[in-house]
Every structure is written in C-alpha cells, then in structure tokens.
C-alpha cells in the first residue's frame, strides 16, 4: 500500500480527536462526579435516575407525613392519658359519694371537684397540635365542643398518606370519645359528669353508686380503647418510617450507582487513556519527522 503524507496527518488527527473526546468526557465525569450529563450518555440510566429521584421525593414526603402523624397522635394520646387520670379521680369521687352517710358539706365538696374535673375534660377535648384542634375531625379550626358541650366538629378523620394510596387516620373525631359516642346510651362525658355532680349534690347516693358509677366505667373503657387505637396507629407509623428509611437508603444507593461517577474506575481509565494518547503523540512525532529529503545531500 502506498502511504502518503496526507494519510499520516489524517490518521493522526482522527486518533487525536477521538482520544481528546474521550479524555474530555472522562475528565468531565470525574470533575462533576456525575456520569450522565445528557440523556444520550445513557438513556436507560437517565430514565432510572429520574424515576429514583421522584421516588426519593415521595419517600421524603411520606416520611414527613408519618412523622407529623406520630406527633399528632402523640399529642392526642397524651390528652387521652390525662383524661384517663381525670376519670380515675372521678371514679374515686363517685365511690366516695355512693356512701349514704356523707354529710352535705362533703357531698358539696365532691360535687365541686367533679365540676372542676368536667372543666378539665373540656380543656382536654380542646387539645391542639400546631394550632389545630385534634379532636374536631376535619374542622380543625374550631374547638370540638361549644359552650353547651355540643359537638361541633365532624365525623371525618384527618388522614395522612404514608405510601401511594395508603393513608393512616391521625385525627380522632371527639364525638366518639367525649361526645355522644362516649357511652352506649349516647350520653356525653360532660353530661355524665354534670349528672354525677348534681346527684352528689342532691344526695342520690344510690344513683351515684349504680347508674353514675357504671357510666364512669363505660367512659373509662371508651377512652382506653381509643388510647389503644392511637397506640396501634403510632406503632404502624413508626414501622412505616423504618421501612421508608430503609427504602430511601436502597434507592439512594441505586441512584448513586446510576448517576455518580465510579471515581476509582474513572481515574484508572483516565490513566490508561492518557498513556494511549501520549504514545500515539510520540509515535506520530517519530513517523512524521523523517523524509527522504533529510538523507539527500
């Protein structure tokens, strides 16, 4: 084959351009830490990166939702704990009031304490989380019970999304705990306490000992069962957070594998390319220099 001047130059330029192209590309990958700069660098990985990013954003959001849910339920749980303690005290007072031999002054004192506890229950029912009433259903901007102790929230539950299409209820409509749902007969906690106070005051010790005490016990059960619901939901949310954290780490790993430069591999490749580039420069320099001209006198 005849080899001509232009062929050497042509080959050299082609090779140099290829090497430089690869070098720049690799250098870019190392400097930016990203192996994909345009979809054409790796179309499949690009789409995966976009997917993983969306999943990460979702997970972050779901985790935030679950964390908020736990805080919300925690506040509600504390409120119910306080209510339970209050009801225990009510029961003690009711038991004391069931005695027939109580003087009027003592009965009045019992009645006053029951009334005080009733006020406490109103406070408990009006518990807020970040300025939202937790026992008002979806009507979080108004206290669950008005001045006449009528429930003014709704029966919907505030829910939070913790996975695609999966929600956990975090609000507890107060009607079912403090309101008409507190007892089977539909008497609210406030009604029961009002009746107890007036029966104590009137000295209806038999009524106090039977009907009232039974109602108090029923309310205690209602509150306890709601505490159990809160406990199980918090448990579920905590597990969800664990699972989401786990998934997040996995997705982060997958994302990193697709979008980040494998630095050791890239640096090794860079060294190899550089060696190839240098040697091609060197060999070309040697080939191009001599012509017959140099050996002619």
């Amino acid at each position, binding site marked *: *084959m*005849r*080899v*001509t*001047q*232009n*062929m050497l*130059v*042509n*080959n050299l330029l*082609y090779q140099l351009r290829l090497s430089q192209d690869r070098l720049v590309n690799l250098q870019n990958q190392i400097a930016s830490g990203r192996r*994909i700069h*345009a*979809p*054409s*660098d*790796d*179309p*499949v990985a*690009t*789409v995966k*990166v*976009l*997917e993983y*990013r*969306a999943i990460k*954003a979702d997970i*972050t*959001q779901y985790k*935030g*939702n679950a964390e*908020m849910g736990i805080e919300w339920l925690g506040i509600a749980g504390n409120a119910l704990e306080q209510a339970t303690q209050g009801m225990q005290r009510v029961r003690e007072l009711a038991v004391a009031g069931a005695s027939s031999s109580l003087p009027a002054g003592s009965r009045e004192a019992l009645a006053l304490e029951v009334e005080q506890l009733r006020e406490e229950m109103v406070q408990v029912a009006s518990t807020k989380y970040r300025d*939202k009433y937790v026992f*008002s*259903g*979806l*009507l*979080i*901007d*108004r206290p669950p019970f008005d001045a006449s102790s009528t429930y003014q929230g*709704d029966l*919907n539950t*505030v829910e*939070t*999304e913790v996975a*695609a*299409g999966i*929600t956990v209820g975090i*609000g507890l409509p107060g009607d079912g705990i403090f309101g008409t749902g507190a007892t089977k007969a539909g008497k609210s906690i406030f009604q029961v306490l009002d009746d107890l106070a007036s029966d104590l005051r009137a000295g209806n010790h038999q009524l106090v000992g039977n009907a009232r005490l039974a109602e108090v016990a029923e309310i205690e059960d209602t509150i306890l069962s709601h505490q159990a619901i809160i406990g199980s939901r918090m448990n579920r949310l905590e597990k969800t957070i664990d699972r989401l954290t786990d998934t997040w780490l996995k997705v982060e790993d997958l994302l990193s594998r697709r*979008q980040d430069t494998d630095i050791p591999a890239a640096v090794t490749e860079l060294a190899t390319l550089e060696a190839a580039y240098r040697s091609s420069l060197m060999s070309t320099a040697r080939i191009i220099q001599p*012509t*017959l*001209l140099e050996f*002619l006198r």
Partner: protein
Amino acid sequence: MRTSFTGLEIGRRSLLAYQKALEVTGHNIANANNKAYSRQEVNFQATDPYAIPTMQKGTEAGMIGTGVTVTDVRAVRDEFLNAQARNSLKALGYWQTHREVLQEVELFFNEPGETGISTALTEFWTAWEEVAADPGTPAVRWTLVERAEALAAAIRQVYGQLGELKLTIDESIRHKINQANGLGQRIAQLNSLVVKIEATGDNANDLIDSRNQLVEELSRMMDLNIRYDRYNQAQIVVNGTIFVAGDIVNRIDIVDMPLAQPVWNHSGGAVLLRQGELGALLEARDNSVQSYLDSLVRLAEDLVDGVNAPHRTGYDQDGIQGGDFFEMRGGPESLQVVADVRDNPRRIAAALEPGKAGDGRVATEIARLRNQSGRFDSRLRSVISQLGIESQSAGRLAGNQEFLLKQVENQRMAATGVSLDEEMTKLIQYQHGYSAAARIVSAVDEMIDTVINRMGLVGR
C-alpha cells in the same frame, strides 16, 4: 540516410521531456497537502522511429529511435473510491447534523440536571402533598403556587427554546439551499471549462480535482448521483431530477409555506431530500424537533386537564367551589396558573367538602396523579428516554461514518495522494535523466566539432 544532427535532436527531445517531468513532480510536491489534489504522472513515449525504406538498404541497421516525448499528463484517479467518499459524506452530513440538533434538544431539556422539567414536576407534586397534609397554612399554599408557576415556566421555556430551534433550523435550510445552488453554479462553470480543455486533447486534471471537491461538498448536503458525458462534463442528478447538466443549473427554489420548502425551479415540483445535511435538517424541523414540541403540548394538556378536573370538584379555603388551576390559551407557551389562584392561594380547592379547614382530600387526589402511567412523569420520562436513545444512536452513527469516511479517504490517498518520498525519488531520477541527456548533446557536439574543425588537416 541519416543526418549528423539526429543525436542533437534526440538530446533536445529528451531534455524537454525531463524538464516537463520535473515540472509535474514540482506540481505534485507543491500540492502534497492539498486534499482535493490527485497526483499527476507524465506518460513518456518513444517518438516514431526512423525507418529507411530503400531498395539499397543492405547492411545498415533499420528502425532508428528518434527519442522521447511526453504524450500526456494524467491524474491518477479512482472513480469507485470517489463514489464511496460521496456516499460516506452524505451519510456523515446527515448523522452529524442530526446529532447536533439532538444535542441541542438535550441541552434544552437539561435532564437529568436539577433544573429540568422533571425536577419542577416532582416539586410540584410534593407541594400538593404538603397542602394535603396541612391545607390551612397560607405558607404551604403559597409554596404550591410558586412551584406550579415554576413548573409552567419550565415547560414554557423548553417549548419556547424548541420553537426557536425549529426556526433556526429553517434558516439553516434556506442557507444550505443557497449554498447548494452556488455549488451547482460553480460545477456548471467548471464543466464548460473542462470541455474547452479536453477538446484540445489535454487532460483538465486540476479543474476536475476542483470539480470533484465541489461535488463532494454538495454530496455532504444531499443525496446525488453523478454521470459523465462524452465531453467529461459532470451531470448531477438529485432524486431523479437533473440538477446540473453541462453548464446549465436547474436551481432549487424556496417556497415559504411559511417554513422553507425546496422546489425545482423548472417544474415547481418538491425536491425530496432525505440524506445529507439538508435531509437531516428537514427531518429535524418537520419530524424530530416537532415530535418533542408535540410531546410538550401533551404534557401541558396533561397538567391542564388532569389537575383542573379534580380541582373543579374541590372547595377552596372560603368554601367556594374550585375553578381551573392551570390555563393554556393556545400552546404550552401560554401555560400558567390561573391568575385568580396565583394571586390568592386561598382559591386553591384542596377540600372535598366546603368549610372544612383540615380537609385536603382533593389535594391528595391531585398529588396522586403523579403515579398515573402514560401521563405526567411517566410521559416526560418516556420523552427523555426517546431523546436519549435517538441522540445516542445519532452520535454512534455519526462516529461510524466519520471512521468510514476516514478509511475511504485513506484508501483514496493511498491511490491518488502525493507521497513526498516518491516524488523526491522521481525528482532525482528525472534530474539524472536530464543531466544524461545534456551529456548526449555535449557528446554529439564534440563529435560534430571533430568533423567540422579537425577533419581535412592531414599533413598541415
């Protein structure tokens, strides 16, 4: 009978021939780095021998040589390799242009960067989730409005850039067509010069080199066939229609429809260009870039239809039923958040029932749209995937064609290129020949000197 001066004549012819050969060698060396140049060779031929047809021939040797002449100077060419080069060039022109256009499109989409539509879309959905979780807080609603505007702006921006790209491509098409006409004109001029020179029996080597170079420039732009008539004029046929014949050019005109459409000047029929740079530009303008514009239209429609429908069923913070969230009058360049909502985020209809401050169920429903397959995120991702694959394969094919063209060029240079070493060798060869011829002239001169000046002096 021979004359005494035959030797001088042989010497003169030989000197002239070597001089000519040296000139051609010099011309070759001068053009060693001219890529379009084909090396030239001189054809030496012995001049007609001198026979002596006489009856008394007797003892003398017949057929006397009369020296040498250069019959022609011929360029070494390989039409097969030229055709190969033209084929490579039209594919290279196509794929390089295609690659450039797609790289531009990739730049506009800016994926998987942090500022592309996909990020804006993700943040938009997150903002809905936030509203769903906390519908009563104004800050959360303001954030949603900002994110929605940012998303609309991202779509508007990419759509606008792609639209401008389309117009830029149209400009390039007009420019390239003018260039092609100019090339055709110059080829036609060279054709008429070639005829004049070859008519005298000479080879129009350098003119043909120039013409080949122009034809190659032209084949980078479009698919063409080339034929030569008996006067060695190039006839260029584009897609079955003659573009250049002899010294006549059938111009390609531009019709505004309103984008440039190439038509033949003589018939007004459309010029079908599917290869070369022009083929790629037309394809990019009418199909490739257009398809990305179309997918943005569909993405914007997804947002308008998909978000507005649930939004209209919801209630805002004041208990009023929701209206549209996004609006688009015409194309995605007008996509925006409805002014009412943008100016007053209380209008965001996040609630399923009126007057419930904690109700974010419609917001949840809207946020869930992101998982719909074939719309929103999934549509965007498939567009990005298509773009990536197209751009990647265009890049690969352009790379392949670059390599192929290099191979063809090397083969052609091996056959027709100038090798300096070879020319140096020939230079020495011809130089020695020239010296030797000069020596013959001197030798004959001495012989004649002997005859004229020294003869007939016996006994003086």
